[in-house]
């Protein structure tokens, strides 16, 4: 099987007054594991359904390997879908479900048998062929849906929140399996999810969407480390997001004046001129926390004093809400290391010092 590249150009779609997609353009590379990530109602499923052929956009084009597929019906596209609720045919057995598309094509029975068994092996269900979907567990149903979609040898596999109906442990397991299947067959996967953890862990690239628009397209690292907008910063993982105005710019080093912290140093590859109002962010795990003022002469290190408002212990880490002198509350995550590296214990109401490097803090958005 060979994957296709998928190009979405200026696609818009509305349902009544509701604009589900607003001039969306995305380029997806051959063989990529590409995620559409966003909250419910952001248009990600609508976009997937347009690629599959279940919806027609009002404007724009969808190209598969450079060929416009919008005039084609769903059964005429080299894309197959794994549906959110699996959509297994309840009146057919697992074997018959997987064989569905081959039998439609009137392939000889011996060939059907061989191919179906091959794909049931791929998803490790070879012994469940004669069962009905109602007799399977959620994870097994999911795998039948995947085998059924893949047996058609599509060049693009569309996955619509395929793991949302599974419990957390199984979700992790299926995610790894999905990734393994992707590596094995190498076709393009387009994966719709509202779960940023899922998207971060398997995707080659992610498009973050909100309110019918694509906010940022990038690798998981780019999206996590350098979010393009406030929404992306808040939606992906946990973060501290604040506003201020630029005091001075020195190369990529930007000093921001903010009411809560005094002056803070952050980085940006292409900073706007001083005086501009901006938002900036620093991830909670990038902030160090300690009882004493760090004795360092390092440049571009931000030092903030505060008091622990709320420590939340969760085994491998503790999250602190630290109230600063300026009235802001910063989230700080301390990873627990082995005893030699653990450092002094920090408790509720302790006076603490926070420090983070300017290289870990980013300018996000220019405010009007």
């Amino acid at each position: 099987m060979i994957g296709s590249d998928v190009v979405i150009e200026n696609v818009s779609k509305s349902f009544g007054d509701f604009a589900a997609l607003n001039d969306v353009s995305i380029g997806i590379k051959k063989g990529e594991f590409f995620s559409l990530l966003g909250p419910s109602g952001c248009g990600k499923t609508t976009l997937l359904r347009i690629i599959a052929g279940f919806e027609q956009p009002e404007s724009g084009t969808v190209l598969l390997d450079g060929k416009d597929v919008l005039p084609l019906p769903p059964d005429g596209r080299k894309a197959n879908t794994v549906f959110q609720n699996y959509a297994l045919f309840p009146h057919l057995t697992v074997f018959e479900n997987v064989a569905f598309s081959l039998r439609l094509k009137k392939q000889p029975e011996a060939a059907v048998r061989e191919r179906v068994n091959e794909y049931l092996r791929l998803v490790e269900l070879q012994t469940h062929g004669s069962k009905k979907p109602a007799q399977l567990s959620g994870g097994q149903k999911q795998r039948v849906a995947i085998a059924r979609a893949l047996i058609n040898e599509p060049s693009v596999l569309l996955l619509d929140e395929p793991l949302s109906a599974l419990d957390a442990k199984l979700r992790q397991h299926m995610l790894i399996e999905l990734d393994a299947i992707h590596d094995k067959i190498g076709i393009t996967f387009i994966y719709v999810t509202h779960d940023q953890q899922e998207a971060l862990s398997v995707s080659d690239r992610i498009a973050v969407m909100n309110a019918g628009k694509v906010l940022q397209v990038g690798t998981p690292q780019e999206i996590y480390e350098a979010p393009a907008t406030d929404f992306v910063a808040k939606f992906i993982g946990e973060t501290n997001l604040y506003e201020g105005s630029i005091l001075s710019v020195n190369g990529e080093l930007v000093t921001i004046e903010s009411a809560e912290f005094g002056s803070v140093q952050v980085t940006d590859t292409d900073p706007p001129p001083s005086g501009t109002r901006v938002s900036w962010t620093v991830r909670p795990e990038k902030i160090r926390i300690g009882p004493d003022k760090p004795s360092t002469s390092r440049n571009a290190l931000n030092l903030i004093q505060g008091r622990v408002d709320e420590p939340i212990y969760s085994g491998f880490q503790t999250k602190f809400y630290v109230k600063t002198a300026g009235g802001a509350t910063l989230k700080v995550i301390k990873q627990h290391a082995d005893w030699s590296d653990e450092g002094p214990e920090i408790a509720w109401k302790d006076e603490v010092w926070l420090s983070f490097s300017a290289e870990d803090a980013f300018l996000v958005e220019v405010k009007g």
Partner: protein
Amino acid sequence: MKRGPGGLYATPAIVWLTVFFIAPLFIIVLYSFLRPGLRGGVEWSLTFDAYRAIANPTFAKVTLNTIVVALGATLVTLLIALPCGYYMARSKNQTLLLLLVIIPFWTNFLIRIYAWIAILGNEGFLNDMLQALGLTNDSIRFLYNRWAVALVLVYTYLPYAILPLFSTIDKFDFSLLEAARDLGASKFGAIRRVLMPNIKGGVLTAFLFTFIPIFGAYAVPLLVGGTESYMLGNLIADELTKSRNWPLASAISLVITLVTTIGVMLLVRANGANVLGGGKEASEAKAEQSAPLLNASLVALPHSGGGAS
């Protein structure tokens, strides 16, 4: 097994069924083995005359005619009801559409038949229209034949087919149709291969809800039919009221009841076996599947052979 108060709760139903269903059925069975009284009623002496009388060509002819009309009308009803039910299930105005389906029930059944006579009669609305439009000079005789009977029967029992079909299709997961399309099925192929097998139970229920009462139809063939559309219901009524042969009427009723009951049971069994072919694990689902069908047949049974409708 421990007996809870469940038996007590069932008392009203048991009393009701005993008094109004089992006891009359017992009387019918008893009467069918007695001699007819001179002015109706029975004489208390045992005989098989009634069952011997059934074995004559008139009875066979009426039975055949009844089967033809009932099967034809039921088939047409289902063919109309299926798209209706599908449309209702997909519509956003389900409550309104349901109301529209139920509205005919607000008018008395006989009045609705007379309304059809007013529409189809020689001096009726339809003939007036055709003549006013100059399409015909003489009035056309629409009424008093098999077609009129079938038309009014279809009209009468359409809601009974639409409602079970709607409720089954409404529970159908329409993303299955998308999945079928996605896997290469045409629009029609998706409906045939995925929708139809999954709503089989509803189709069967709709079939029973229409076929059984139509099979025992009496008023409709009496009022809009002619001699050629004489049905079993009419035969029973005539034996009862004109020939005053109550034992024969009872025997015919019993034969119809027996035949429909066996037919229904075979249908339910065949359907159950088909829907969930093989597999012990499926037996639970199977019981679930056939229960509503059995209920349907029980509800519909009192209609059969009664000839009251």
